[in-house]
């Protein structure tokens, strides 16, 4: 997949920093093709964050496979239930379906942070 321009990356980076400051969770975004099963790959990406994985939220977007995964660590899950993740994932998928990759990511990061902050 083509990389992000400096402006796009800056937007995503700022959204992630803002989300981390607000929610106290750690965010990671991965765009690419999975190695093996999509969900399993996303969970392994999450586990690769090491000690930070418990508080981490990983957003994995498979643009080629037209699918996305949100993975939350065990501590992040207490504040970010699967139902909230599902709702956010559907909204992100809607944005992606019209070709708005960056817009969908920015919305998703902000929405997840909002949900986590509300349950803080």
């Amino acid at each position, binding site marked *: *997949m*083509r*990389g*992000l*321009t*400096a*402006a796009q*990356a*800056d937007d*995503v*980076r700022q959204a*992630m920093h803002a989300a981390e400051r607000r929610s106290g969770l*750690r*965010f*990671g*975004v*991965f*765009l*690419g*093709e999975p*190695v093996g099963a*999509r*969900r399993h*790959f*996303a*969970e*392994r*990406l*999450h*586990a*690769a*964050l*090491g000690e930070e*994985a*418990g508080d981490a939220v990983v957003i994995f977007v498979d643009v080629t*496979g*037209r*699918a*996305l*995964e*949100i*993975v*939350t*660590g*065990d501590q*992040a*899950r207490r504040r*970010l*239930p*699967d139902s909230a*993740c*599902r709702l*956010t*994932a*559907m909204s*992100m*998928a*809607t944005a*992606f*379906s019209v070709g708005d990759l960056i817009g969908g990511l920015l919305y998703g990061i902000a929405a997840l942070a909002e949900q986590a902050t509300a349950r803080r």
Partner: protein
Amino acid sequence: MGYVLRSLEILGLREDLSADTPRTGLAGLANEDYVHGVNSAAEILLFLIGVSLGLFVLISLLVMLPGRSAQRRVESGPVWLGGPDRSERGVSTSGLVLADRVAHWADIPEHDWMAAAETAEPGRRVGGASAGW
């Protein structure tokens, strides 16, 4: 008062020097051409404007040329932000403004998230959701 008049004469703003007074410029004693050629206030002003413009052009080139020649390609393959140790990949480091560029002394983590994921074991209590479009 005499000192002021003398200063004006040196700067070329007062031309009525007495005949027996040696004419001096900023560099000291000088001949007639030098005094009239360099010490004219308008010419000094033009000289300063020229130097300023030259410096402006030089500094502009120094700032803009590295940005144009910097790595502008966008890598193909996986892209990530916020990977292990805050690593990033597939993100263009060149930008339209100076603030977007990563300082050359900045320590950019080179962790490979995909390689780390190959050996990582997923946790049992992870949550989340999936969606497609």
